[in-house]
């Protein structure tokens, strides 16, 4: 079974070198002057010890630029995550592209688009299907369904993790909510696997206490880490792509410093889930142009300039409630742009209805899309045989054909 595609094409550069520099400098400026809120005394003390300017009363950390750049250098350009089964180990970074399963709160009906809470049987079947899909390499937290019938809400994340460890031997990401990392770490270790640890921002420019606690927990378990910003363009981030890229970068680089201070050299994958807000309803404009433009800029900065692996999350959540044309083009233009601009991982399989639902049939369709995208970035062979110059000469004009060669 294959794990990942190797990019063999020059990645897209949507920004000029000067623009990349300007965005990086802007990010350092925000980190140094405005800083980021960390709602954890333990984190604040750690930052203070490492020469950040810390305002304990307002939970604010201001980062000296040299420290941020030092921590970017400390972050490896690729890292390994151990799966329960060795053949499913993943090495994120470099030219590799993986695909991640989507997460949806509920199960979606393919005919009507209506959603309902999934049963445990449906949850576990969906995991088995994902386990079998060729191009699906790993799972995020609380996947496939966040809600499962008969499971107490407080037990949802650990139960979801346990089921993924039981029914799949592929890598999983841990959750960050309400201390569930404590159980998830132990379950993974008991299976001889690692999880991708997790710490996600509460935009703008903030990290909540349970996210930070999870961050400490995963880093101390020596797991590699998935960091995520959480801005909504026009709502919790600037409405412009450049501005949203800077606020997202500031959130992510603050998290990167946090982890490199706890565990120098820890592997990190940076996630992009920024999307524009529908300015009438406040709801997410998934599948929109703003997403693919943001992803292109984000991947260029992180994979090409910082040399740190990336995942793109917003790509796999269509706004469509159905398995239809809309869903198809929403996912394709976002995921294709991600792949072309150098993403190391794309969330793709099974998402419907703006991150609110999942369906395993959709995951099967998306596996085809993943294969097309993966094959695309493998590029084409141009050598003496594939150029076929001699053959073209030999066949010549009509009535020549290529059927008998």
């Amino acid at each position: 079974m294959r794990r990942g595609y190797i990019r063999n094409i020059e990645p897209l550069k949507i920004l000029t070198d000067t623009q990349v520099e300007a965005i990086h400098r802007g990010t350092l400026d925000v980190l140094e002057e405005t800083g980021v809120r960390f709602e954890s005394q333990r984190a604040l003390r750690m930052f203070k010890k490492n020469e950040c300017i810390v305002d304990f009363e307002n939970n604010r950390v201001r980062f000296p630029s040299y420290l941020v750049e030092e921590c970017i250098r400390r972050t490896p350009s690729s890292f390994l995550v151990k799966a329960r089964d060795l053949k499913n180990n993943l090495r994120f970074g470099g030219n590799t592209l993986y695909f991640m399963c989507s997460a949806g709160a509920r199960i979606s009906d393919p005919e009507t688009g209506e959603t309902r809470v999934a049963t445990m049987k449906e949850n576990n079947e969906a995991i088995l299907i994902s386990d079998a899909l060729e191009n699906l390499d790993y799972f995020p937290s609380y996947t496939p369904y966040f809600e499962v019938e008969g499971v107490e809400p407080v037990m949802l994340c650990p139960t979801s993790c346990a089921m993924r460890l039981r029914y799949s031997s592929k890598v999983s990401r841990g959750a960050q909510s309400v201390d569930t990392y404590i159980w998830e770490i132990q379950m993974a270790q008991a299976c001889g696997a690692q999880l991708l640890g997790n710490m996600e921002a509460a935009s703008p420019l903030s990290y909540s206490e349970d996210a930070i606690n999870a961050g400490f927990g995963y880093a101390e378990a020596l797991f590699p880490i998935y960091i995520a910003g959480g801005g909504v363009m026009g709502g919790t981030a600037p409405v412009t792509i450049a501005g949203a890229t800077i606020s997202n970068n500031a959130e992510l680089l603050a998290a990167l410093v946090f982890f490199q201070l706890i565990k120098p050299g820890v592997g990190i994958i940076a996630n992009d889930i920024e999307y524009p807000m529908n300015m009438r309803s406040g709801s997410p404009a998934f599948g929109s142009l703003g997403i693919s433009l943001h992803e292109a800029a984000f991947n260029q900065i992180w994979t090409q300039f910082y040399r740190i692996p990336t995942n793109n999350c917003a790509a796999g959540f269509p706004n469509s409630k159905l398995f239809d044309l809309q869903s198809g083009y929403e996912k394709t233009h976002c995921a294709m742009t991600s792949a072309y601009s150098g993403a190391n991982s794309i969330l793709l399989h099974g998402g419907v209805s703006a991150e609110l639902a999942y369906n395993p049939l959709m995951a099967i369709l998306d596996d085809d899309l993943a294969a097309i995208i993966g094959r695309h970035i493998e590029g084409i062979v141009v050598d003496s045989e594939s150029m076929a110059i001699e053959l073209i000469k030999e066949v010549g004009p009509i009535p020549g054909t290529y059927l008998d060669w």
Partner: protein
Amino acid sequence: MSSDILDGLYRVVLDLNFEDAEDLAKKSIEEGIDPLQSAEALTKAIREIGEGFAKGDLFLPDLVLASKVLQRALPVIRAEIKRQGKKTHTRGKVVIGTVFGDIHSIGKQMVATLLLSSSYEVIDLGVNVKSSVFVEAVKKYNSDILAMSALLTTTAYEQKNIIKDLISKGMRDKVKIIVGGAPINQEFADSIGADGYAPTAPLAVTLVNKLLGLDSGG
């Protein structure tokens, strides 16, 4: 002169001009204009903004900016109303927040803003709000409505804890409780003993009007 200033207060909202809002409110007091009339000019304008939003002519930032104008101008006017021993006309007081453990803010802010634009006094406690803070705010502001937002299945149950806390403090009957957010539905709202649920921000306003026995007008 008086009508010029009143017109100015009405305009400052429609123009989303939060920079001049406070100065204009102060000026209206210096000029001796009846603060009740000033408040009426401001609320008339925000109601129009709310209607424009509901019709789809205006966008969310228009609504939020207009409410920012009100947040700057109204406290000045209200203080003067109080100083003159008069009574403020609001439709009622609403304490709102996203519950503890939950930092989703966009939906909650929409509900808060639309209520404000419908002439309610809104006390927004922000996100990740502990039960004790909700309970204290309900007591301190003697609010008519407690509105709680939760976007996670895991935090939806926090709404139940807050209702329990209000019961144990003997305060449950003093306030109407409404809940909302993506994982919430009517059945859930009933099961935790809330007074109402609405799936969208405009319907949250209709719900509050209904619970307080008011019509939909300003």
